[in-house]
Structure formats: C-alpha cells, structure tokens
C-alpha cells in the first residue's frame, strides 16, 4: 500500500462553524502535475487532504512516506516546492490559484524512491552515521559529499532570484510586544493598550485566536468577543508573523511572512516590556509506526475538521490523555469518523501502529489489533519556552504536568497563557489581563530606559499570581521504539544507542544523532529526545534538563536578513564626464573613481610632456577654524606648524600613539584663523574622527571648529609643464612663479566660479595646481579646463597614471608603502619628524625608534634588467630568508624601465646596494637601491618651475 492518493476519497465535510475556507471561491492548482481544486483559505495540505492525498514527502534518511502530523507550520513531512520557491511549509502556506506545487526530497519520485533501500540497510544509518560511515577512505570524501547532498532535504532554488521577490526591514518601538495571538495574548494586548501602552501583537497563524479557532461553538463565541475587543483597541496586529528571537536590551526579531507587497519583512522590535504568550505545542507520541501517513496529533485533526472541513479518515484509534484529545474524539464523531478510544488516564495505550505506506491498524494495550486508517494521539504538551530561554530563563521540568515551566525572567519579560499554567479560560484571561496591565505600567513608567540590560530574577518574585497546574500523565514513549525526530529520521532507539556509546547527556546525544537539528529545530522533538536520553541513562527528565533554545525560533530567509540594498556609492560631480569618456571604474571604498581612460601609459606621458587633469574629489578635506588650529596641527603632525604664514601650504604626516604612520596630506593656511587640511582619500572619515577625538576628549579647552568639506568641493589636479598655460586665462589668481610659488595656496575665481581654493603642490612631480571648486560647479570647471587645454594637448588621467607618476617621483602612499607596523622613521620620513617639538602624537615611540635605530626603511629600487617589474609584495631575500619587500612597482613610461619602492633592512639601504628580489613565480632577480626615493627629477626642478 504505497499509493500516495486514495482514489475517490472525497473527504470535504459540510460547512463547519469555524471554517476558514471560502466556499464561493474555488480554484485549480496542481500537485506534482495533477490538477486539484481548493477553496480560498485552504492550506496546501488541507486542499490536498480533502482530495485524498496522504503522502507529501519522503523522509530525510530512510525515505519513508510522510503525511500530515501537526497541520501547522511545524509539520515536518509537509515541506513542498511552490513554483520556483523551495521549502514552503505546506500545512501553513495558503494555496493560491494556478500554483504548481511539487514534492521535494523525492528521488526519483514520491511513489517510488531509490532511498527506500535505506530502510533495508538501516543499520548503516543509525546514531552518528555521519561520523562513522563516511570517514574512510578520505579519497572518497567528494563521493560521500555527492551522496549526502542527495539526502539533503530541500527543494530547488532558482539560479537567479526572481524579480518578484521583495524583502525589507524596519524598526518598531512598541511599549509592549505580545508574542502569541491566542486568547491570552489577545487579552494581554488589549489590557496593555487600555492602560495606555502602544502595543504590537504578533501571531504566527493567519488569524488571531490560537486553539479557540478550532474549538467548539462555545470557544468560537469567546473568540468572537476577544477579536471584537482587539478590533476596538489600538493594538497593532501582525498575523502570519512570528517573533523569531529575543536579544539584548529587549530587542526582538519579528518575521512577517505576508507583509503587503513583500515576500518577507524583518521587523526589529525594541519593546519596553514583552509578554510571551506563545502557548503549547502538542507533542508526538513515540511508538512503533508513529511516522506513518495517517498518524496525526489531536490538534491536527481538530484543525483539519474545524478550520478546513476535511475529514481526516474513516476509522480512527485515538489515544487521549487530556481534554484536547477528548475534544478531538467529539470532533471526529461529529465528522462521521468511527472512533476507538484508548484513554491513557484509565490505563489505555497503543503498542504499535501497523502499516507500510500508511496506517492500516493499531495494536492496542491489551494486545488486540484494531483496523483503522487514522491514529490520533493526545499525549501531552511542549512548552514553547524559546523566547524565555533567550531572556535568561532556565525552565524547570514539572513532573506533575509533564512539561517545563518558566523559572526566572528579567522585569521586561512577562509570561502568560499556557506557558504559565493551566486553568479555565476565564482564569487564564484574568491572568493575561493582569500581565497586560503590569507590562503597560512598567513600560510607560517615567524614567524607564528602554533597551537597558535588566538582571533576571526568580519568576515567583514577579507581581503576577501563579496559575494552577492540572495533572497530566507523563507520556513520552510507548511499549515500542518509534521516531523522535521526524525531520532527521532519528528514533528513540538511536538515542538509546548514542547513550550506550557514551553520549550520555542530551547536548551530546543531540549532536551525535542530529535529533532536534532538522527544520523543526526541536519544537516537536526536544522533550521526547530528552525523555529518551533520561530513560536510557536512568535519570529523570528534570535531571536530564533540556537543550538550550537559541534564536531564531522560526526560519528567516536570507533575503529578509539582507533587506533592501542600502549600500551607498559615492561619485564625484565629474562622474557623467568620466562615463562618457570611457573611464574604467575603480572601486575605492565607497567611491567609484576612474582608474584610467584606456591608456594609462599615454596618460603618464601627457602629464610629463604637456598637461593632464585628474579628478581627486575623494581626497579628504577638513575646514579648520579657530585660534587653536596651529596647536592642533602641532599636536597631530610630526613636523612643525606654528610658523605657517597665510597663503602657505605644508606637507604633513600624522602618526598614531604607537608611532605608526597614520595619514599624510597637505594643509594650507587660508586666513589668520582659517585652514584647509587634506587627508588621504581612504583616511578622510577616520582622520576627522581622530581630530574630533583629540579635541573632545583630550583638549576640550581648545578653540577649533572642524567641518568636513570633502564633498563640498569638487577637486581636480591640473599637472604638467603646460598646466600654468591652461589655467592662467581662466582665473583671476596671478599664477606667475613669483606671485604663486610652489607650496602656496590662493583663493579666487576659476572659470567664473568664485570661492575656489588653489594649491600649488605636486604629487605627480610636475608643476601642478590642485583646484578645489564648489561641488555644484565641478563639472563646469572640469569641462572648461579640458576645452581650454585642448590646444595644449591636455588629457584626463586616472588613478593608475597618478600612482605611476607618484612612484616615479618617489612619493609614498600610506598603507601601500607603509603597513600597520611602519613607524615614521621606517617610511623615509625621518627627516620630517621634529623630535625637538615639545609634544606631538606618537613622539615617545619615535624617540625610542631613533634611539634604537630602525629595523626597516623605505628605499627606491630599480631592477638591473630594465624589463623586469617585480610584482608588489615580492620578497627581498638574503640567503633564502625574507628581509624586506617591494611595496610599489610599475613600469615607468618616463624612464622606460621598472621602478619600485621597497622596505629593506638598514644594512641593505645604502645607495648602490644590490638586493635579491624573489618573484612570485620563484625566480630571483637583482635590483639596485637608488640614491633618492625619486626616480624622476630628484632635484624637484620640474615641480618648482
């Protein structure tokens, strides 16, 4: 009997009082290519169950047929693929017209499955099989991996994310968050709102109501009243949403699965007080055959009958230990199902469930075999203490009620409903109302700081009255072994075997067998697993304890975690020109910059021979004003600044307190109390914070105001022997060498744009002007300069050409020619550091470095073979030992040979020293240390011209 469908089994019941299906809206969908019909409001499995489908998947390890167990989100055997969406929870997701639903984890088909053979070889797949079977020989690991991938439960994700998928994130700041929209949660939410709190109520199901939804007419009447109360309140309600985790400061992750227009949304909820009313999950009974299609929990048959009007079978055996089971019997009888009841409270039990592809009978306690097509168990509850655990609770097992109870919580987490105890609905609602009022009081109390860390304390100290507890038989395993974990195919026998092998605590046995580690994540199986370990080790469940629940409680898609893409991209005002002119983009931090415009060597030659222009907008720029700016510069730079005249620019280097080179740039004095500082592009944000740190925490008395103006200016560098000729006609600043010399600054008009800053500096080693133009006019000035320069052979150049030009000139780049250990003395900057200054950041270490002597220093190198260009990071070796490295290297278009900067030990630093450079390909070449860092124009004649 392996047929997945019972032909002709029309099992839709007459209209039920609480049904959620709309019989006026009937539509078609397909299941494994076969057309079926559903009503609006049907879940995937309720529609298929109504059509007689019983098998929805094959189990993970043994490929056993599996059907509905819980008829809820947790249903372990009902994960299906819907169109191109894998891993859809079929007993939760509501089917929509025209959808194509297919079974997943069936290879090659739902009815016939190759892995069925595993049942015959089950002894290879017992406890810890991952760790035993697939270990040796190691050369077969890739094969094992392919085999195991076949086992992985999962659907087929599309190769590219479909455009229709939309994910988002948001924050919410309710005074009170209520997790769980059953009767207690609804009541608590309304009470808190009436007490003046802003309330967010989150319910995992599609409607509020919890177990009342599938209750009798009395329950439905109470539900209608509660829903009316919620509707009349200001409570914000999220359904088809779940509180997936609780984090420090009462922050909760709420996953919304049907937010309007979105595939999934993650809401980060900072709650004043949270009320956990997550209720109880019905626990499966461990007995032989308990995974057969047709074995359902009592809550599952109540859902199918009362919510979806589906008759779950014709002849049922019901094992009941509680009122929910008794109510299921009543529902079944009303639906026309013949019922054989085994009452556990009166000694009834089931020994094993019979069948192969589905239930055909039950061996009951007295040995009789009762034929049936449906087995229903109501043997107890698992307390959903996940959120409480995450709040610091250590739930305690209470044998009298055969479930865990909360024990300790911080003041900003309260618990009500079935988690707190048992009672009649009226008393439960009183407790919930009290919880809501207390939560509102605490959350809106003046002076309460939301998000503060609160200590946990015993729950008995809390102000809520304790709820009574109703005795419940402790029922975990019957007289035979059965499945504990339906997702991972782990049985009670496997857990016993794990204990026998020495994995004798629940934490060890869980990891060894992978019980509780599948898609259900312990919600159905944890307590049964603990019970099996306790039984095998001869201790009580209380002694065995429970495994720790960690976030997330429910699956969250990676899309929701990522949310929308908010990664900012920065471009200069000249970016439109760059794009039109074929700039190759270079990603530099958040910036996109032109790397080159097709021919970086030609760009270098243009700068050396005529004139070039580069967009340097990302250079960090800080406007400094106030009488204490010279003190600040003196403190942060290693060189001297007190005597910088108005109109002058100086190069400076900053070190951290450990003497390591932090940043460099030029600063110019625009007026008596007004300076403009430049930093490296990558250091722009960090140096601003560095300066503010010193001003705010160390020198709060100094009068300096810092304004970041990096993007307030568009910056460009006009470089080359003809740069003066290009710029002169466009500016009111006198550019003659006498009036505007090297390392001077002027302010003036460029291309009719006022308030521009002109620096005469030269990173490239040529006569050059760095122009800072109000950003809105950047493109205008850029295009005007290019037009004016056309007769002079002007050419735009990019970062690559600039790097080559500065390397030819021997100018270091912080972070390229230095690293996190390079102190100023090792960066070729020893002459710049003024140790006779009374104090500056990094001075103590630089004094000591000078005393001890440097261990490494920056030099210029040229390979003897001019065609060699050793790649950056090539090692400098002596007798096979690495003593230094090439930090920068390029082929110099100006010299027609390879040029480098490198870090070498002092004994190799003398000009003319031959060093051995080991290339990445293993070859050794010889390079010669140069006299100056500059390969081109060491005297600086071009620069000062």
């Amino acid at each position, binding site marked *: 009997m392996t047929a997945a469908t019972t032909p002709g089994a029309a099992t839709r019941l007459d209209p039920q009082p609480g049904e959620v299906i709309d019989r006026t809206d009937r539509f078609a969908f397909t299941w494994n290519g076969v057309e079926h019909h559903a009503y609006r409001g049907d879940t995937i499995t309720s529609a298929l169950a109504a059509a007689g489908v019983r098998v929805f998947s094959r189990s993970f390890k043994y490929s056993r047929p599996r059907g509905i167990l819980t008829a809820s989100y947790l249903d372990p055997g009902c994960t299906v693929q819907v169109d191109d969406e894998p891993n859809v929870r079929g007993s939760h997701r509501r089917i929509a017209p025209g959808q194509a639903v297919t079974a997943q984890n069936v290879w090659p088909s739902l009815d016939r499955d190759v892995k069925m053979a595993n049942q015959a070889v089950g002894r290879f797949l017992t406890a810890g099989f991952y760790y035993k079977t697939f270990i040796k020989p190691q050369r077969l690991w890739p094969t094992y991996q392919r085999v195991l991938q076949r086992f992985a439960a999962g659907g087929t994700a599309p190769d590219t994310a479909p455009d229709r998928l939309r994910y988002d994130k948001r924050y919410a700041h309710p005074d009170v968050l209520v997790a769980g929209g059953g009767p207690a949660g609804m009541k608590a939410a309304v009470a808190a709102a009436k007490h003046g709190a802003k309330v967010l109520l989150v319910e995992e199901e599609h409607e509020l109501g919890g177990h009342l939804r599938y209750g009798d007419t009395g329950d439905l009447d109470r539900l209608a009243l509660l829903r009316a109360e919620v509707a009349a309140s200001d409570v914000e309600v999220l359904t088809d949403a779940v509180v997936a985790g609780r984090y420090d*400061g009462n922050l909760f992750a709420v996953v919304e699965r049907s937010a309007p227009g979105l595939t999934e949304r993650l809401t980060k909820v900072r709650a004043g007080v949270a009320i956990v009313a997550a209720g109880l999950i019905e626990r499966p009974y461990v007995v032989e055959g308990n995974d057969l299609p047709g074995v359902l929990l009592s809550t599952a048959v109540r859902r199918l009958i009362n919510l979806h009007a589906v008759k779950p079978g014709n002849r049922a055996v019901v094992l009941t230990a509680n009122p929910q089971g008794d109510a299921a019997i009543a529902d079944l009888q009303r639906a026309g199902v013949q019922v054989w009841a085994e009452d556990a409270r009166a000694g009834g039990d089931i020994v094993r469930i019979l069948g192969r592809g589905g239930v055909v009978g039950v061996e009951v306690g007295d040995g009789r075999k009762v034929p049936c097509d449906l087995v229903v168990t109501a043997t107890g509850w698992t307390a959903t203490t996940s959120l409480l655990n995450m709040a610091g609770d250590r739930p305690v097992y209470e044998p009298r009620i055969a479930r865990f109870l909360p024990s300790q919580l911080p003041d900003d987490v309260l618990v009500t409903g079935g988690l707190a105890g048992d009672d009649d609905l009226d008393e439960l609602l009183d407790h919930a109302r009290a919880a809501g009022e207390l939560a509102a009081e605490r959350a809106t109390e003046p002076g309460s700081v939301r998000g*503060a860390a609160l*200590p946990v304390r015993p729950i008995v100290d809390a102000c809520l009255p304790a709820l009574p507890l109703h005795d419940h038989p402790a029922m975990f395993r019957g007289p035979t072994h059965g499945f504990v974990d339906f997702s991972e195919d782990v049985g009670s026998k496997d857990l016993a075997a794990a204990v026998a092998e020495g994995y004798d605590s629940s934490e060890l046995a869980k990891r060894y067998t992978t019980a509780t580690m599948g898609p259900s994540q312990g919600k159905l199986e944890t307590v049964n697993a603990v019970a099996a370990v306790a039984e095998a080790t001869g201790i009580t469940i209380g002694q065995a304890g429970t495994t720790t629940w960690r976030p997330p409680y429910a699956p969250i898609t990676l899309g929701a975690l990522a949310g929308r893409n908010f990664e900012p991209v920065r471009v200069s005002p000249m970016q439109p020109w760059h794009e039109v002119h074929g700039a190759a983009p270079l990603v530099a931090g958040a910036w996109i910059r032109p790397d080159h415009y097709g021919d970086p060597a030609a760009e270098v030659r243009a700068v050396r021979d005529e004139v070039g222009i580069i967009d340097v907008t990302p250079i960090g720029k800080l406007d400094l004003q106030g009488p204490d700016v010279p003190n600040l510069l003196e403190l942060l730079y290693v060189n001297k600044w007190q005597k910088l005249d108005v109109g002058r620019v100086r190069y400076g280097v900053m070190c951290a307190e450990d003497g390591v080179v932090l940043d460099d740039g030029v600063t110019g004095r625009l007026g008596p109390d007004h300076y403009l500082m430049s930093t490296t592009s990558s250091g722009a944000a960090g140096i601003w914070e560095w300066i503010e740190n010193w001003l705010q*925490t160390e*020198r709060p008395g100094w009068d300096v105001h810092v304004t970041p103006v990096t993007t307030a200016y568009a910056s460009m560098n006009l470089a080359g022997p003809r740069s003066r000729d290009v710029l002169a006609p466009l500016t009111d600043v006198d550019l003659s060498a006498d009036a505007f010399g090297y390392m001077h600054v002027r302010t003036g008009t460029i291309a009719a744009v006022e308030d521009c800053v002109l620096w005469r500096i030269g990173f490239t080693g040529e006569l050059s002007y760095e122009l800072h133009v109000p950003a809105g006019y950047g493109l205008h000035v850029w295009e005007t300069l290019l037009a004016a320069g056309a007769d002079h052979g002007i050419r735009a150049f990019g970062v690559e050409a600039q790097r080559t030009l500065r390397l030819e000139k021997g100018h270091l780049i912080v972070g390229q020619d230095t690293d996190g250990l390079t102190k100023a003395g090792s960066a070729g900057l020893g002459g710049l550091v003024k140790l006779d200054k009374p104090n500056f950041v990094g001075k103590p270490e630089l004094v000591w470095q000078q005393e001890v002597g440097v261990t490494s220093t920056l030099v210029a190198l040229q390979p003897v073979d001019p065609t060699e260009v050793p790649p950056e990071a090539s090692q400098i070796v002596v007798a096979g030992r690495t003593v230094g490295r090439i930090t920068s290297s390029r082929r110099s278009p100006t010299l027609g040979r390879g040029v480098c900067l490198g870090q070498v030990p002092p004994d190799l630093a003398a000009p003319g020293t031959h060093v051995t450079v080991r290339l990445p390909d293993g070859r050794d070449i010889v390079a010669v240390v140069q006299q100056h860092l500059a390969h081109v124009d060491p005297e600086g004649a071009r620069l000062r011209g």
Partner: protein
Amino acid sequence: MITLSCPWCGPRNVTEFAYGGESGARPDPATATPQPWRRYLYTNANPAGPVTETWLHRAGCRRYLVVERDTTTNEILAIRRPGGAPSTSARHATTGRATEQRP
C-alpha cells in the same frame, strides 16, 4: 543589541556607536618609559564587571562619550561627556589657549 543613552541624543541602538575601547590613563608622554607606555597602548584590563570605555556616537551627534558598562550583564552604569568638558557652545565661547584636560 543593547541601547546606549547618549547625553545629547537620548537612547539609541548601539549599532549607531563606534567602540573606542577601554579608557586607560595615558602616562605623561614627556617622561614616559617604554614599558608603561606600551602597557597603555596595547593592554586592557578586560574585567568581568564594570569597565570604563570610550564610545563615539558616529551615526548621531558624533560626540565622544565615556561609558561605564558591566561586561557581564551589559548594564550601563553611567554615560557622560569626556573629561567633564564644557558643552559645545561653552567651548566656543572659550578663547583661552591649550588646557590639559584628561577624561
């Protein structure tokens, strides 16, 4: 994710702040010897309990803050401006020269 209550902005998610590390007393740079200086640079007490730290409200007011935090519970014991510094406006009314103030 805890919150920090910025004296300027009010309670904000800690993700708005940059961590500046444990606050330690800086030896006088003029007289320091290598060992205590490097202890200041590279070692932290890292206590299980109250610790004084520097934080920057990077995504807010961009002020540096002194935070006393219990590392075992994340309880914030105190948040204050560094060094008892005068407020921003007061600082700009100041015309005096350098004053040595430490947090």
